[in-house]
């Protein structure tokens, strides 16, 4: 038997992999450790094909596999009371959590990071961050109805800060406005720890009728696997694994082409198209394509389903016909979705996508083999147990170490600071506080965001929480707030996390809404740094305990590690989002004095 070396267009096949066990593979460059590579060989009983290696490498990256955080995140699922579960229609683990808000309505929301891409290309990085989180919301069967953004930038007077700030804000503005989603709030802080590692956390909220709930699973032998939306291109290849799992310092620019370019128009059309598909009950399962693209969508859909999946990869519509099979598997092209459709509904499905001018290709079908098999021009290039790619990735119990510097930091209290001694000094101090970037007016940001679109915004800038009407008849609505204070968390991660939760909870409560669910975006340094891991452990433990105490479930979120410049990690920054339910938005309570003659009360301790 002659063995061909894989090259452009000719992929490394399974039989090729069996015949050439000794072939050296670039697992290191793809971000896999040696023992991880050996584990893949063990799972497969042979060396992986290059396509399989591509899939495992992106799916086993920190970003997709949560390998350093999984052991901790379990607590969110364990520390729950029956009342916390009562209104939860979908909990952690799906694309986004779903909460029953009454009257047959449900709300889904989630916050996610796009930090590293936003440093490399601020505009596109932040824009595609919004795009990604919105697709998570659509894939639950919901109409996205609002976005928020929690931002951290470097020192305001650093020469690079303007590039990042203006790029990020313009990117969020461009994508969110163009989707027609009101921006109902967020946060903006400047601190030099975020200099080469800004944080861009985007939150989206969606609403749906109970019966419209959709999940990401591929069930039913013979059902079709359909890819629709934008064409697959060579942008963002390896973006998830390389951008989100490794620090970049000097090596930055060489990885630049790994950015993705967003097309909010394509996403807007995709939203309307999906909603029409849902309304006509034309899809069984659905998954958005984000980090790890087709690798992620196929393996997750298959492992959440009850059988296997077979697809023919050459049927993927390409923007660049010279792309290799591996590149297609890894591409992070935006604005794509994958659906499972029963054969009898395929015609109806194709009619709807055609109406919206959305390109579509039927890639294959659900099988009963239990395996995910991918062919490329008639040859098998992937044959794996889907769970081994999507679910049973490596799990690490990383070493933790108490950061001894924290004692000195805590001892250095504000008590030692000099106090103003006269009125003039007090005035000067007050003025400099008011002028400090973190307290100053943020309207130069919020004025770039559309807060009116959809006509349901009951609260937004400058209120502490945003509020949106769901039902025009009854006035039912929801409120959301996000909060985090990295400086508190640096001093004491556990207390900082509790404070962030408490503040978001209060910000929702003061609008008049009842807090019902939490989503969190945990932004930390490298998990390979034991002190960072200690901060992370403290945070998750405290947060899960505090949620139990407040009787409010965590329904989903995101972990972003490797946020650091050189060896210096960012302050631990767990951004906490709290969702509340408001039975009638007409009764909302805005911040700020409303009417002359009102009494003023100070509550609490």
């Amino acid at each position, binding site marked *: 038997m002659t063995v061909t070396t894989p090259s452009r267009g000719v992929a490394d096949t399974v039989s090729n992999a069996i015949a050439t066990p000794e072939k050296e593979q670039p697992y290191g460059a793809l971000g896999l450790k040696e023992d991880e590579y050996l584990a893949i060989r063990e799972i497969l009983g042979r060396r992986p094909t290059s396509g399989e290696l591509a899939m495992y490498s992106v799916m086993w990256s920190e970003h997709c596999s949560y390998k350093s955080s999984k052991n901790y995140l379990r607590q969110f699922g364990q520390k729950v009371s029956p009342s916390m579960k009562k209104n939860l229609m979908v909990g952690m683990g799906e694309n986004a959590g779903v909460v029953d808000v009454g009257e047959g309505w449900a709300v889904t929301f989630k916050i996610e990071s796009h930090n590293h891409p936003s440093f*490399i*290309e601020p505009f*596109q990085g932040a824009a595609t961050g919004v795009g990604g989180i919105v697709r998570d919301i659509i894939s639950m069967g919901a109409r996205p109805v609002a976005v928020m953004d929690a931002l951290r930038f470097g020192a305001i007077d650093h020469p690079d800060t303007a590039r990042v700030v203006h790029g990020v804000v313009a990117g969020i503005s461009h994508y969110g406005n163009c989707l027609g989603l009101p921006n109902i709030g967020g946060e903006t802080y400047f601190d030099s720890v975020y200099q080469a590692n800004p944080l861009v956390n985007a939150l989206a909220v969606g609403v749906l009728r109970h019966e419209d709930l959709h999940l990401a699973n591929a069930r039913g032998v013979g059902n079709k696997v359909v890819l629709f939306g*934008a064409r697959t*291109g*060579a*942008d963002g290849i390896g973006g998830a694994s390389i951008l989100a799992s490794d620090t970049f310092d000097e090596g930055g620019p060489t990885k*630049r*082409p790994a*950015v*993705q*370019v*967003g*097309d*909010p*128009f*394509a996403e807007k059309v995709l939203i309307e198209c999906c909603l029409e598909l849902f309304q006509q009950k034309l899809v069984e399962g659905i998954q958005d394509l984000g980090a790890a693209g087709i690798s992620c969508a196929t393996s997750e859909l298959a492992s959440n389903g009850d059988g296997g999946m077979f697809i023919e990869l050459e049927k993927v519509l390409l*923007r*660049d016909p010279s792309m290799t099979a591996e590149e297609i598997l890894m591409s992070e*092209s*935006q604005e794509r979705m994958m659906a499972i459709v029963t054969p009898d509904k395929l015609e109806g499905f194709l009619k709807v996508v055609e109406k919206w*001018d959305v390109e579509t290709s039927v890639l294959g079908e659900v099988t009963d083999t239990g395996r995910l098999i991918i062919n490329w021009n008639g040859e098998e290039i992937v044959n794996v147990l889907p769970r081994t790619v999507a679910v049973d990735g490596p799990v690490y119990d990383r070493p933790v170490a108490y950061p001894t510097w924290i004692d000195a930091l805590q001892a250095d209290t504000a008590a030692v600071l000099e106090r103003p001694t006269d009125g003039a000094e007090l005035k000067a101090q007050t003025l400099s506080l008011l002028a400090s970037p973190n307290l100053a007016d943020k309207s130069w940001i919020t004025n770039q965001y559309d807060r009116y679109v959809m006509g349901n915004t009951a609260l937004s800038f400058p209120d502490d929480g945003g509020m949106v009407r769901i039902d025009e008849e009854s006035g039912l609505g929801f409120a959301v707030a996000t909060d985090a204070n990295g400086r508190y968390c640096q001093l004491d991660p556990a207390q900082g996390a509790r404070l962030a939760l408490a503040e978001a909870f209060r910000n929702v409560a003061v609008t008049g809404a009842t807090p019902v669910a939490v989503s969190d975006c945990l932004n930390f340094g490298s998990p390979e740094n034991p002190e960072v891991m200690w901060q992370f452990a403290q945070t998750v433990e405290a947060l899960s305990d505090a949620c139990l105490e407040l009787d409010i479930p965590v329904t989903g979120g995101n972990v972003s590690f490797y946020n650091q410049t050189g060896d210096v990690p960012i302050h631990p920054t767990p951004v906490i989002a709290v969702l509340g339910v408001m039975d009638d938005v007409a009764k909302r309570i805005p911040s700020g004095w409303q009417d002359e003659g009102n009494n003023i009360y100070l509550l609490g301790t």
Partner: protein
Amino acid sequence: MPTIVVEVMPKAVLLDPQGKAVTGALHRLGNTTISEVRIGKRFELTVEGPVDETLLAEVRAYADDMFSNSVIEDVVSITVLDPSTGSATEAA
């Protein structure tokens, strides 16, 4: 007065959403022969005085640094137009 023309295009491997939208419009209008449209920018710089090597070096730097974003765009040409002679000279 001479004019320096700098042309910038989105990188070929990256998505050009604008171009995609226009391609779609042409196809809806019935065109079948134009397979792709990509849209970039054309900068016309009016220069006071002569165009010398110092200025061209400066313009090349602006082109790379300000007129284009090297992460997502390429400078495809820099040309000097001299209206008095009607000549066009490639300068990059």
